[in-house]
């Protein structure tokens, strides 16, 4: 596939690995913020190709992992008690709520549908005028324009039986939360390429300056990731802290102004709870007053009891890179992909599932050999 295969070239990968080996002289901890990057690192087996001195920490950029428990309970409640057609991206379905996941609710008869685009949900609402359709709008800045557009679209079409359960989270405040944690030992960041495609890169200058830390906007293919890591390591070795853009073939410094305009039209920045981490100020999107009729939170009387997270799950420490998944006492014991205690074990992008599936197993292999 053109524009993909070039970035999966074994020769190029070999060259970057060689260069990395030459460049790195000390141990460094680098966090890849985005779950998509974690997925690619793991899927391509890059983690065990890197020089030992480079430790990649899987960050909080997995939307499935950071969507709060309470919100999943709300989605289940809407689907079961309010009998709405609840639409969601696929991998949200398996995330455990306090009592059940959406997948279990579906099995119990709730009308839950997997969609790729929120615009499909608007179409569904139009086709089912006597039903309420709710889209579970999770994700980072990347999915926000499409979700915002669905609200605008419904508004224009006069579709009144459509609303969204918004749980958008933002990357820069998450990086800040990681850096503010005293236990954190992250020395450089790979920023999420696709988020920057929308938002541009200017938001990251203050982070680089305030925390004196290299941030490299990075893509998702093996060559992208290795180039991003190399750029970060070069800065670290030289003692620099700059914002660089590895993914310049996709990310323009100003981002996508049209998409940002759509986001700003529908959403406003609000405090947001992150599963496993807690509330981070000004770290998410909520729906503006002008569009509040499309806010499922207001449209339906959703009185859900706040339930505390399982004490056994140390997701917060893992998402901030303080602990590795295999340092959790329940890892691979009580907590497995088929019986997850917390969200990072659910999505293939989640740090714990990634570790469980790939990293840990490879280590086992190496010790066994």
């Amino acid at each position, binding site marked *: *596939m053109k524009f993909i295969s070039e970035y999966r070239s074994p020769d190029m990968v070999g060259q970057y690995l060689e260069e990395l080996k030459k460049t790195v002289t000390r141990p460094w901890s680098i966090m890849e913020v985005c779950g998509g990057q974690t997925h690619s690192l793991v899927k391509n*087996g890059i983690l*065990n190709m890197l020089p030992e001195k480079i430790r990649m920490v899987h960050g909080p950029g997995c939307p499935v992992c950071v969507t709060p428990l309470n919100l999943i309970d709300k989605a289940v409640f809407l689907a079961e008690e309010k009998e709405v057609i609840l639409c969601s991206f*696929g*991998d949200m379905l398996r995330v455990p709520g306090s009592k059940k996941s959406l997948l279990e609710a579906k099995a119990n008869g709730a009308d839950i549908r997997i969609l790729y685009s929120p615009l499909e949900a608007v179409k569904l609402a139009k086709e089912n005028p006597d039903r309420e359709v709710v889209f579970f709008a999770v994700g980072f800045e990347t999915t926000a324009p499409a979700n915002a557009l669905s609200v605008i679209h419904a508004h224009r079409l006069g579709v009144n039986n459509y609303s969204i359960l918004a749980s958008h989270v933002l990357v820069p405040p998450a990086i800040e939360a990681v850096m503010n944690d005293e236990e954190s030992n992250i020395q450089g960041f790979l920023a999420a390429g696709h988020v920057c495609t929308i938002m541009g890169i200017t938001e990251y200058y203050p982070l680089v300056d305030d925390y004196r830390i290299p941030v490299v906007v990075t893509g998702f293919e093996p060559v992208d990731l290795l180039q991003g890591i190399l750029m970060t390591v070069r800065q670290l070795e030289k003692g620099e802290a700059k914002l660089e853009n590895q993914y310049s073939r996709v990310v323009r410094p100003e981002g996508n102004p049209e998409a940002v305009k759509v986001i700003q039209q529908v959403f406003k920045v609000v405090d947001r709870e992150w599963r496993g981490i807690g509330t981070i100020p000004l770290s998410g999107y909520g729906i503006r007053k002008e569009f509040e009729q499309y806010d499922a939170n207001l449209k339906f009387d959703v009185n859900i009891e706040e339930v505390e997270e399982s004490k056994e799950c140390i997701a917060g420490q893992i998402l901030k890179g303080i602990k590795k998944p295999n340092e959790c006492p329940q890892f691979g014991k009580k907590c497995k*992909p088929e019986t997850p205690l917390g969200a990072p074990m659910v999505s293939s992008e989640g740090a714990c599932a990634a570790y469980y599936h790939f990293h840990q197993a*490879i280590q086992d292999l190496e010790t*066994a050999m």
Partner: protein
Amino acid sequence: MTDEKLKMQLSCPMPKLDFDIITLGHGSGGLLTNKLLDSGVFDLLSNDWLDRRHDGAFLELHGQTAFTTDSFVISPVFFPGGNIGELAVNGTVNDLAMCGAIPAHISLSFIIEEGLPMTEFWDILVAIKYACSQAGVQVVTGDTKVVERGKGDKIFINTTGLGSVHPNASIDIGNVKVGDKIIISGHLATHGIAIMSVREGLEFETQIQSDTRHLNHLVKECLDEFGKHIHLLRDPTRGGVATVLNEIARDSQLGVDIFQINIPVHEEVYGACEILGLDPLYVANEGIFLSVVDASIADDFVKKLQQHEFGQGAAIIGEVVKEHPRQVVLTSNIGGKRVVNMLVGEQLPRIC
């Protein structure tokens, strides 16, 4: 639809009937059921056993016999490249082939949701007839039930099959040994992606068609030539190739190494997997099979497959090793290694 299938359909025009949908009465066992069966079902599938119209078929079995059953609940019932009818025949035929058997007789059982248009039922029957004649099997007994609207998904089909085991065959997980080569007969994920492309809410435009087809003739030719050197045959349907490889590793207590660079996936299928966030290793297949064979015949085996219409994409994708017992390890295109686990639940598309 291929020309041949189209021809088949034209040569089997639907009989004129005084009903155009299937109703509860058609499953009652009484007059309406007989009317439905007499309307052309029996004529279409006619053979000595079925024509007796008894409660069951009388069969002569000789030697070791393989016996298998499978239920088909696919949605949508009609998909690019086929429908549930041929899938139901090919599925059972292929399961028998994976036992090293020569499929001969199948049973055919329908559970129909009332309201199914007769034209659709007829198209399914014609597809069944077509698939049976291609595979060389006969429907010798069957059943039809109708359930109320909302209690089925248009139509469910169960087929059960019998076939004599090929005299040269020795298919057993116990035969799998270190050094054996793992061979796939064709491109991965084609069927699963074709189905996905017409699922509600996920529709996307594509030319990808299901590769559902009978594999028994190809398997028989391989058994004729390579016999006991073929240690295991598996049909990587639901759960995909990754799941079957994990089962092989688990049941043999050995390790499995596979090499991404050798795994055949059609470019457009690969593209669809990229967009949907799916891993082709976990996507369902229909028209391919996985063989574990003695290393000494591996190259000849692949050549043999490649000469056949249904084995053109054949390739050696891996081998059985003594390291990492019970685990499947993939070497990625760029040389990285990762463990390939069994599919947990259904493969769900990723957000980003």
